[in-house]
């Protein structure tokens, strides 16, 4: 097989044969000039190359609203290059790179650097998220306008990792970004209620003697911010919703017609706090330590239902790479977070499709269309129709395989699914008509 030069400008046509678009009947897809040229029975069509997609599902290229690429600053954990490789392997064509790097992405300079690195490597589009406050310190607004006007055209702003807990600052941020159609993505965590918090506050934390992380610490901020967004008529996005109570509040806010959107991570759709107590990897294994913490089975059920009925708009990975030494420690000393780009689609299949809660059209909506819309990414999240940008993921839902951290493209290995068997495999990813992944391997 010939390798295509990612920077090749010349016109290439690719014919994808026999793909089931959104899980429907098999058909062909012709890609030309970075766009979808034709869809249907294209038996006589000619192309520079043909990809056999028999039995594969074609989805619009996935869009992640919440990725930690760690560059600049923590290149030992991940870089833009390895993170976007992981994204492509997971079927993503665009990721939003969170701002909590070092230096923090709180200026036009930093966001442009990240954006450019993404373009250079070309595995997927990197859309930087700007910090809401300078240095994520929660004291002073960062130069939101400058970031919006930069080459990176930042539209999503977040202090993710930290909550914008000051109500006045949050209100101003929500108001200010209206000028350029921005959105504040809130990491909802009331700081005082979560001092020293380690694990969802409940039965498991009580038994393990780990400082509890109450659901109310998330829910209180979400409630406040929904009310603030309504008051100033702004757009609010809630990061990684993790509790049943949060779902109720968001459902209520949406019922009022307020412009509130929300995401859920794959791990909150599949894992519970009991992982910290009972897992094949032993109790207190910090591989399960994450912010927000894994919650209860009841919360998982509520989150799945909310994602199915649209109360939660999308799945976002919160891909958070950490080097081995930050996880091979006592629980309290370990870093929070888990990688997720390369397993997201499989986890969603397991949690949502196999359970009958979502069909593949629903998966496309929650993992591509809606996140692109929230992030205002015009070139992504378009259904596979003539004229749409040729961002496509080919996925084989029929296989089941054990998760092997060593085989991942991410620089880090902190996947909570190690040893688990998950369904599905990304076979190919196309970014504007150019394959970034073929036969499961990076191009």
């Amino acid at each position, binding site marked *: 097989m010939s390798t295509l030069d990612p920077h090749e400008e010349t016109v290439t046509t690719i014919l994808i044969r026999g793909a089931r678009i959104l899980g429907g009947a098999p058909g062909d897809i012709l890609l030309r000039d970075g766009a979808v040229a034709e869809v249907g029975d294209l038996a006589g069509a000619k192309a520079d190359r043909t990809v056999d997609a028999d039995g594969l599902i074609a989805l619009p290229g996935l869009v992640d609203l919440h990725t930690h690429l760690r560059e600049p600053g923590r290149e030992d954990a991940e870089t833009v290059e390895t993170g976007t490789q992981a994204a492509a392997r997971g079927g993503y064509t665009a990721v939003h790179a969170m701002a909590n790097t070092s230096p923090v992405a709180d200026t036009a300079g930093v966001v442009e650097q990240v954006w450019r690195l993404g373009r250079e490597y070309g595995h997927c589009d990197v859309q930087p998220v700007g910090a809401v406050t300078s240095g994520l310190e929660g004291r002073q607004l960062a130069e939101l306008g400058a970031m919006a006007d930069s080459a990176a055209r930042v539209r999503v702003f977040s202090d993710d990792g930290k909550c914008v807990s000051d109500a006045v600052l949050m209100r101003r941020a929500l108001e200010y970004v209206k000028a350029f159609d921005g959105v504040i993505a809130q990491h909802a965590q009331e700081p005082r209620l979560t001092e020293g918090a380690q694990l969802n506050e409940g039965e498991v934390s009580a038994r393990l003697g780990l400082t509890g992380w109450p659901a109310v610490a998330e829910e209180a901020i979400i409630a406040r911010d929904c009310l603030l967004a309504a008051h100033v008529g702004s757009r609010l996005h809630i990061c990684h919703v993790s509790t049943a109570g949060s779902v109720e509040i968001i459902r209520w806010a949406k019922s009022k017609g307020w412009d509130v959107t929300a995401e859920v991570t794959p791990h909150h759709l599949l894992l519970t706090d009991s992982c910290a107590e009972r897992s094949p990897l032993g109790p207190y294994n910090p591989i399960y330590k994450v912010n927000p913490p894994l919650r209860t089975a009841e919360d998982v059920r509520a989150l799945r239902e909310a994602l199915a009925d649209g109360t939660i708009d999308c799945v976002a990975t919160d891909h958070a790479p950490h080097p081995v030494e930050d996880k091979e420690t006592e629980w309290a*000393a370990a870093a929070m977070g888990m990688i997720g780009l390369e397993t997201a689609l499989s986890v969603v299949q397991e949690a949502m499709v196999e359970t009958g809660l979502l069909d593949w059209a629903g998966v496309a909506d929650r993992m591509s269309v809606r996140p692109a819309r929230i992030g205002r990414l015009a070139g992504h999240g378009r259904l596979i129709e003539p004229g749409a940008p040729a961002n496509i993921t080919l996925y084989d839902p029929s296989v089941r395989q054990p998760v092997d951290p060593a085989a991942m493209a991410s620089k880090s290995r902190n996947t909570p699914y190690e040893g688990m068997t998950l369904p599905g495999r990304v076979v190919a990813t196309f970014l504007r008509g150019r394959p970034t992944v073929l036969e499961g391997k990076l191009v």
Partner: protein
Amino acid sequence: MKRHLISTGDLTRDDALLILDTAEELARVSERSIKKLPTLRGRTVVNLFYEDSTRTRISFEAAAKRLSADVINFSARGSSVSKGESLKDTALTLEAMGADAVVIRHGASGAPHRLATWVRGSVVNAGDGTHEHPTQALLDAFSIRRRLGRLEGLKVAIVGDVLHSRVARSNVLLLHTLGAEVTLVAPPTLLPVAVETWPCQISYDFDAVLPKADVVMMLRVQLERMNAAYFPSAREYSRRYGLDRDRFARLHDDAVVMHPGPMNRGMEISAEVADSARSTVVEQVANGVTVRMAVLYLLLGGSEPAIGGAE
């Protein structure tokens, strides 16, 4: 099989009784002039203490030495976390020293579980964060049984800062396994959320529990908790949850008073109660050595451990 003593929840009733019965026999050894037994000759026990706890360390050290084990004291005071060697690297060092057992005291809940994944020897939890302190619970049960002759059916009140107490967690699990009825008594702020799922009763009212109790176990309450608004003042805490002379008088005649130490005299327990004949505070210390001998013997004495949870 590799087995450890990390949580009293891992002990079956038979395991727990075997430890107590073994301790009972070993207590006789402690009474004679030659207290040393050759049983663990050639075995190495490492005391890995990340927190200052002279009494617990000395107790384990005496237990290991009376069984003729080689004892290495590894004091890693302060935190391995913020600076210096990681717990894993320390574990690998101990492994290289050929530790047959590692007795670990650590400020982080779950540290012994983590350690157990990195060393081949048995891990004995000497107190981890706010999780468990199984040998303390075993010596408490031993002390109760010696005083009252049984555990089955006894009413035990555990009073104080349950939320932050590893002693309370270990005791609830062990005493339940051994058939005692435990009631936790504390202000609601000092009880964990979901405590109702534990195998015990809960009460906010010490005076209501007092007359029925066969055993009253007072937990240490740290004054710092006051600053975090767990209770308004030492005086109010003491008035509502302290074991003073008046409350002591309302205990029934055979009831015993326990405290894992160190005590805040005048706070959770008054001096005269602590020093009374019905207080087991002093014998708890002696029993500690005996019970720890039993644990070390049962874990290390044979070809494989006779008690404990597998990793």
